[in-house]
Each structure stands twice: as structure tokens, then as C-alpha cells.
């Protein structure tokens, strides 16, 4: 009698365990393909790179050799070119992102109205964004050409220039910012237009009745209401901008000198031109950690703004 109940209970426990395993398996099957690819192509390379960054890299066998501790990191941190390329990247980010966001929201605010051509404008505004960055760099390289470029020709109408866009370090940086801004501002205009449409109208009407002028409405009503979307747009652009590589490669090649050599291009050249894989891995690890921390902070900040009423 007692044995029978135990076996019954055991069987029940066992079948429950099977059901649970089956359930677990059926839940995770959905994750499996993505997880396998992401582990093999993302997690594994990153861990392999970390290993290389702590080793001497043997070019004969093309694999990491003996363990050297923090040597590669010390070498990289003592390399002025590393710091210079970080500074270049920071300058690009500090100029490009605010410029794109201000221009994008500004244009959206200016053209914000209900009219028939909106759909068409939206369709046309999406085009610069899907131009491959390498092509964007190429077109602008042609348009900004100091001798034959159409940019200097247009600027000539206003009595400005001619500029040697790729010869002067500051102008070269400016042209990288211009190209990136050209590619991304329309996208921000689209997001901002949608955001403006979703703003509550009665608040603006009430403010207008109370005698608020255009500037006050912008500063005290529109901007605070738009803050979460502006923050989110910033995060999206940040995620794209840390990948800056193609435009620089095709437009300025990092030049003149190293004036536009952003960190991604510098690491690329160190690894694949100079074959210094250990040092470039150390740099890549540093950049990876840095961007991940900053991305985390920005995401957290933008979430907080969004959740605040």
C-alpha cells in the first residue's frame, strides 16, 4: 500500500519534471538560433579579442602567443596617436550630434503644418538616410573639391570662399560633420515631425489665448514636452555615430595628417595596415568598454526622462 503511493508520487514527480524540461525546451527553442549566432559571432570574438589584448601576437602563426599582462594597454595609453584619434572622435560627436538634432527639430518645427504634400516630403526625406555612407562620402568628396566642386561655386554667390575643404584640418573636420549631418538630419526631421503631431494641441491654444508669443511657446511648452523624444533621438544617433568609419574612409581618409582620423579608422589601420593586432585589440577593448558604459548611461537617462510625467 505504501509502496504503491510512493511509486505513484515518484511517477508524478518524474512526469512533472519531464513536462518542465519540455516546457523549458519549448521556451528556449525560440531563443536558440539567435543565441547561437550571437554567441558565435559576437560573444566569442569579443572574448578572443580580450585574450589577444593581453598577449603578444605572433604574426607567424597568426595567433596570440605568450601572456604579457597589461603591456599592450600600457603601450596604447602611452601612444599619442590613440589619444589624438579619441579627441578627433569626441570633436566629431560634440559638433555633429547637437547640430543634427537642433537642425532636425528646427526644420520640423518650421515646416510643421497640415498640408497635402506631407507624405511626399516624408518619402523624399528618407532618401539621404539610405544612401550608403561610403557613397555619401564619395559624393561629397566630389562636391567639396576645392577646384571643381560645386560647393565652392555655390558659396561663391555669397562671396564666401573658396575653401580648401580637405586641405585644412578644421575644414576637413567640418566637412565630415557636414556629410554626416546631411545624411541624418532628414531622419531627425521625420521623427521630430511625428513627435510634434503627437503633442497636445489644447496646451498651445491655451498658451496663445494667455498671450504667449512664439518664442515662449517654444521654450516653455514645446521643448519640455519634446525632451524625452529629443533624448531618445540623441541615443539613436549616438548608437550610429560611434560606428563612424565609412564616411571618413571615403571622404578624407583620416586626413589631412590625422585631423579626421576617428578612433574606428585608427584601430582599423593599426590592425590591418600595420598588423599590430595585440595593440589594436587593446584599443578595441578600451573603446568597447567606454562606449558600452556611455551607451548604458544614455539609455538610462533617456528612460528616466521618458518615465517622468
Amino acid at each position, binding site marked *: 500500500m505504501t509502496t504503491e503511493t510512493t511509486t505513484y508520487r515518484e511517477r508524478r514527480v518524474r512526469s512533472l519534471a519531464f513536462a518542465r524540461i519540455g516546457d523549458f525546451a*519549448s*521556451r528556449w*527553442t*525560440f*531563443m536558440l538560433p*539567435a543565441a547561437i*549566432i*550571437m554567441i*558565435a*559571432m559576437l560573444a566569442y*570574438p*569579443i572574448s*578572443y579579442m580580450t585574450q*589577444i589584448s593581453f598577449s603578444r601576437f605572433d604574426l607567424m602563426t*597568426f595567433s596570440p602567443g605568450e601572456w604579457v599582462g597589461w603591456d599592450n594597454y600600457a603601450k596604447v595609453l602611452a601612444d599619442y596617436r590613440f589619444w589624438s584619434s579619441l579627441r578627433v572622435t569626441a570633436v566629431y560627436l560634440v559638433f555633429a550630434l547637437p547640430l543634427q538634432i537642433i537642425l532636425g527639430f528646427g*526644420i520640423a518645427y*518650421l*515646416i510643421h503644418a497640415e498640408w497635402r*504634400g506631407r507624405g511626399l516630403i516624408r*518619402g*523624399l526625406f*528618407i*532618401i*539621404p*538616410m*539610405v*544612401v*550608403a555612407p561610403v*557613397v555619401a562620402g*564619395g*559624393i*561629397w*568628396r*566630389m*562636391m567639396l573639391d576645392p577646384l*571643381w566642386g*560645386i560647393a565652392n561655386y555655390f558659396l561663391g554667390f555669397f562671396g564666401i570662399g573658396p575653401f580648401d575643404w580637405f586641405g585644412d584640418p578644421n575644414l576637413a573636420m567640418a566637412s565630415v560633420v557636414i556629410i554626416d549631418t*546631411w545624411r541624418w*538630419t*532628414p*531622419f531627425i526631421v521625420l521623427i521630430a515631425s511625428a513627435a510634434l503631431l503627437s503633442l497636445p494641441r489644447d496646451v498651445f491654444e491655451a498658451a496663445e489665448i494667455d498671450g504667449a508669443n512664439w518664442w515662449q511657446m517654444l521654450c516653455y511648452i514645446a521643448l519640455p514636452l519634446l525632451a524625452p523624444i529629443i533624448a531618445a*533621438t540623441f541615443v*539613436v544617433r549616438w548608437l550610429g555615430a*560611434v*560606428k563612424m568609419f*565609412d564616411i571618413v*574612409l571615403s571622404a578624407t581618409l583620416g586626413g589631412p595628417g590625422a585631423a579626421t582620423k576617428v*578612433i*574606428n579608422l585608427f*584601430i*582599423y589601420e593599426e*590592425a*590591418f595596415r600595420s598588423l599590430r593586432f595585440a595593440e589594436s585589440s587593446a584599443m*578595441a577593448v578600451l*573603446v568597447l568598454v567606454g562606449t*558600452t558604459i*556611455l551607451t548604458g548611461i544614455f*539609455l538610462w537617462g*533617456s528612460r528616466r526622462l*521618458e518615465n517622468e510625467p
Partner: protein
Amino acid sequence: MTTAVKSFRWGRTIRIWVGALACLTFLFPIIWMVLTSFKQQTDIFTSPPTFIFAPTLIHYLEGIRPAEVPHRLLNTVIVAVGSGLLSVVAGAMAGYALARIKIRGAGTIGVLMLLSRGVPPVALAVPMFLVARKLGLTDKHITLILAYCTFLIPYVMWLMRGFFLALPKELEEAAMIDGCSRLGAFFRIIVPISLPALLSTLIASMILAWEELLFALVLTNRNASTIPIAMAGIAQDTVNGANWGALTAVGTITVVPVVVFALLVQKWLIQGMADGATKG
């Protein structure tokens, strides 16, 4: 009263003009590229720049021959379609799991996916190249397809997660009560009704893969080389001087198909770019 209406109309007209002007400014570089690609060499290098010229196809027929465009176009199509399909299947399944199935650690996976979008590709390119070389996988389409999945899967996952969250739950619950497995319910019920969204995501993913440069530079050589590499090669070629005819011809070939597809899925494309940060 009339003045108010008048000023309203004026504001409206100004808005429309500003919009049109902005549009023209942003589209001009592309128009200029397409125009230049049909110009004779003598019309390209004129001052002032000319808008009226006798069109020629010489750059498309002769100028781009060294760039091996047909071969590279074929590679780009293979890689874009392959990585697009693979990441849409894997990403949609994972997105469904995040949206509907209670998995322990789903929150962590979501955060990891988001953070992975901030990984600079050069940090992956270095080790990927070394591993691919070790395994003899450089210059193969499959390597590039898998490499592109690293940024396409998180993108698809996030987009489809949002889409699945908005679907009514009763659909697959009914199917599962009728004896469908979870996987069966997904493929028989969810996939068919999500087909438009999946297709748009696929096109958006293929566009992203089409334009990728860094992984292609690092992981391919000749055999699997893609069209952005041709573009980078011409743009950097300072030895032969400014070959603007070939530059703009290759640029036009690269951009036109993408623009056509992008216009088809414009709404989805913007949403996909924006959602990564705004939702979750």
C-alpha cells in the same frame, strides 16, 4: 479677422516653402551624383558647373569596368538576401520569445541586445578576421552573412518584439489549446498574420547589409567582395586622380535600388531606427 486669416495663410505658405527648400537641399547631392554620372569627362570638369549637357553612358559602359561591378553586385545581393533572411528568422523567433514567453533573464537579454547595438564594428572586425583566417573562412559569402547577423539580429529582434507585443494574445492561445505546440502556433498562426511586418523588416535589414563597408573590407578579398568596397576603392584612388565619372556611376548603381526599396518600407524603416531607443 481677415488679417488673422491672411497671416495664417502666409505662415502656411512660408512653411511649405521652407519644407520644399529643405527637401531640395537634402536631395541635391543625390541629384548631382546622378547627373554627373551621365556627363562626358569634359562636362564634369567645367567651371562653372554645368546642368545642361549631352548625356553619355560611357561611365557605365567603360569607366566602371575595373570596379568589377556585376560580380560585386551579385555578391552584395547574395550577402544581403542571405543575412536578411537568416536574421529575420532568428530575430523574429527571439523577438517573439521576448514578447510573449516568460523566460527567466528576458530583461537581461533585452538590455544586452540594446547594448550590443552600441558595439563599434571595428571591435568585432579584428577578432572576426583572425578567427576567419584561422578557420580558412575569409573571402566566403557565409562569413559575411554571419558577420552581418551580429547587427541585424538585435535590430530585427527589437522591431518584431514591439510588433508581437501589439498582437492579440488570444490567437496563439486558441491554437495551443487546440493542441498546437508553441513552435507550431508560432509558425502556423503568428507568422502568416505578421507577413507584411516580416517582409518590411526583411527589406530594411537587406538595406543595412547592402551598405555595410567595414566587415566587407576586412573579411573579403576578391571572391566575395561587395559593392561598397568598389566605391571606397574609387573614392580613395588618388593615384589616377579624381575619377568622378566612375565614382558617380558606381554610386548611382549602389543607391538607386536601395532608394526604391526604402520608399516601399519607409514607415517601417524610420520606426525601426527610432524604436531601439524609445521603446522597451
